């Protein structure tokens, strides 16, 4: 053991050799109890896709059951609020599936009876045009669950003739730039697209060395590998909770080919958004 200048205690590699190695090996050997715990944990963290109306699990992937030409995915509460107010109010959307998952970020320990608000990953298609699919994902999908999520939604051999649009937010402190962060006009949009996406984006592309994280990154990588045209619109904001100004920052995306025909009444959408803000306002006394 050694102490660093900052007071951290770190484990230093032992040059003496064998004794320590034997101890480490003993620690590494897995017992049947360990295996059982691991199995239970894997079962707990499984991503399940099912239909809420019939309470049945989907046997095939979602897009195999409901092939689509346009797939719009909103990840995070601001992106979800944007789609709810500006897209979902213009037409009748039918729920076609719901992804149920549990991880350490969920606020419940009961993994058997997750309510829709806790496992918020719902899929809809437009009744008048079922080839338009929408996903509202408000829950956090952990790293080990992202591949399962992709398999259950896209399947192992997805169609290439669809266009995927992903909307999400990130805190502006994650944005790396040579400019001073105080000069940034938050919120602002950045785009990242796959090679097969040919349309021009509605904002500047995300510059290096910035990267995308979590589920949006997983979806984009998946689309790049399978040569599906996909674009991610990432909104950098300084307010990660539900916020009117952050949600409205996504408005330029309404002119895109995927969303143009789905948007009908913008003033009404703004009113719906304001109502959503007031009903979802969380009382917190920490900040004034």
């Amino acid at each position, binding site marked *: 053991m050694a102490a660093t200048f*900052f007071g951290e205690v770190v484990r230093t590699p032992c040059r003496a050799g064998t004794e320590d190695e034997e101890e480490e090996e003993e620690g590494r050997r897995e017992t049947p109890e360990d295996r059982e715990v691991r199995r239970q944990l894997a079962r707990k963290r499984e991503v399940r896709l099912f239909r809420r109306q019939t309470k049945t699990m989907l046997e095939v992937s979602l897009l195999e059951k409901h092939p689509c030409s346009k797939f719009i995915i909103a990840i995070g509460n601001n992106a979800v609020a944007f789609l709810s107010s500006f897209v979902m109010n213009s037409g009748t959307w039918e729920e076609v599936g719901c992804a149920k998952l549990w991880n350490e970020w969920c606020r419940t320990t009961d993994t058997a009876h997750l309510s829709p608000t806790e496992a918020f990953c719902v899929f809809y298609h437009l009744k008048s045009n079922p080839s338009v699919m929408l996903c509202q994902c408000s829950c956090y999908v952990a790293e080990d669950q992202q591949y399962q999520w992709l398999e259950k939604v896209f399947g192992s051999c997805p169609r290439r003739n669809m266009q995927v649009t992903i909307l999400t937010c990130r805190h502006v402190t994650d944005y790396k730039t040579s400019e001073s962060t105080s000069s940034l006009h938050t919120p602002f949009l950045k785009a990242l697209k796959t090679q097969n996406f040919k349309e021009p984006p509605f904002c500047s592309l995300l510059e290096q060395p910035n990267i995308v994280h979590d589920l949006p990154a997983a979806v984009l990588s998946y689309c790049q590998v399978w040569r599906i045209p996909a674009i991610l619109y990432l909104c950098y904001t300084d307010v990660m909770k539900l916020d009117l100004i952050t949600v409205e920052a996504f408005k330029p995306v309404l002119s895109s080919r995927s969303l143009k025909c789905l948007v009908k009444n913008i003033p009404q959408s703004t009113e719906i958004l304001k109502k959503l803000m007031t009903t979802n306002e969380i009382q917190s006394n920490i*900040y*004034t």
Partner: protein
Amino acid sequence: MASRYDRAITVFSPDGHLFQVEYAQEAVKKGSTAVGIRGTNIVVLGVEKKSVAKLQDERTVRKICALDDHVCMAFAGLTADARVVINKARVECQSHKLTVEDPVTVEYITRFIATLKQKYTQSNGRRPFGISALIVGFDDDGIPRLYQTDPSGTYHAWKANAIGRSAKTVREFLEKNYTEDAIAHDNEAIKLAIRALLEVVQSGGKNIELAIIRRNQPLKMFSAKEIELQVNEIEKEKEEAEKKKSKKTT
């Protein structure tokens, strides 16, 4: 690399950052907006009122606090940190009055608060205060003052400034609209503060709180009705300006 320097705030990072102080500035952005304007004969503090829970007593959720009869402040950031700073400042105001038989100057009490904040950026085991403050008042010489402090312990005098969420947007509005004409009359200075807040306040006038200090007069908190009147006047003026504009174009 940054994480190694977050633990002890007395440690600089290799490129000269005190990360805890910068993180404290992020905490300030989580508080609702506050704006301060220094007029010719008036100082104005306007804040975006936090929505109060149904069962909560509204009087105990205040963003504008008097430090003495002639000085008041608005803050943005951590509520508990603000309470501690305000209490210390209030005690200092009275202690000063008892010791030298004169009320504090606005600059003195601002310097006191800023020094307190700076101490907490240079002590082992302590974190900086997560608040920025706008301190306004009149000195004995009758000159209006507006100061702003931040978690690093710096303080500066301003003609007009904003802190908290969307402070940048409000500051840009003030830079465009703060003119000598705009602040010459008390009512115009009040309207400027409200207009600046309306740029970012989500639900209009009912979420605004306003306080003013006039020369040789105590702090006055505006009632909801008075604010509503001002907001209605502003909206009327806006409509008239738009009508004039459309007439000009046709």
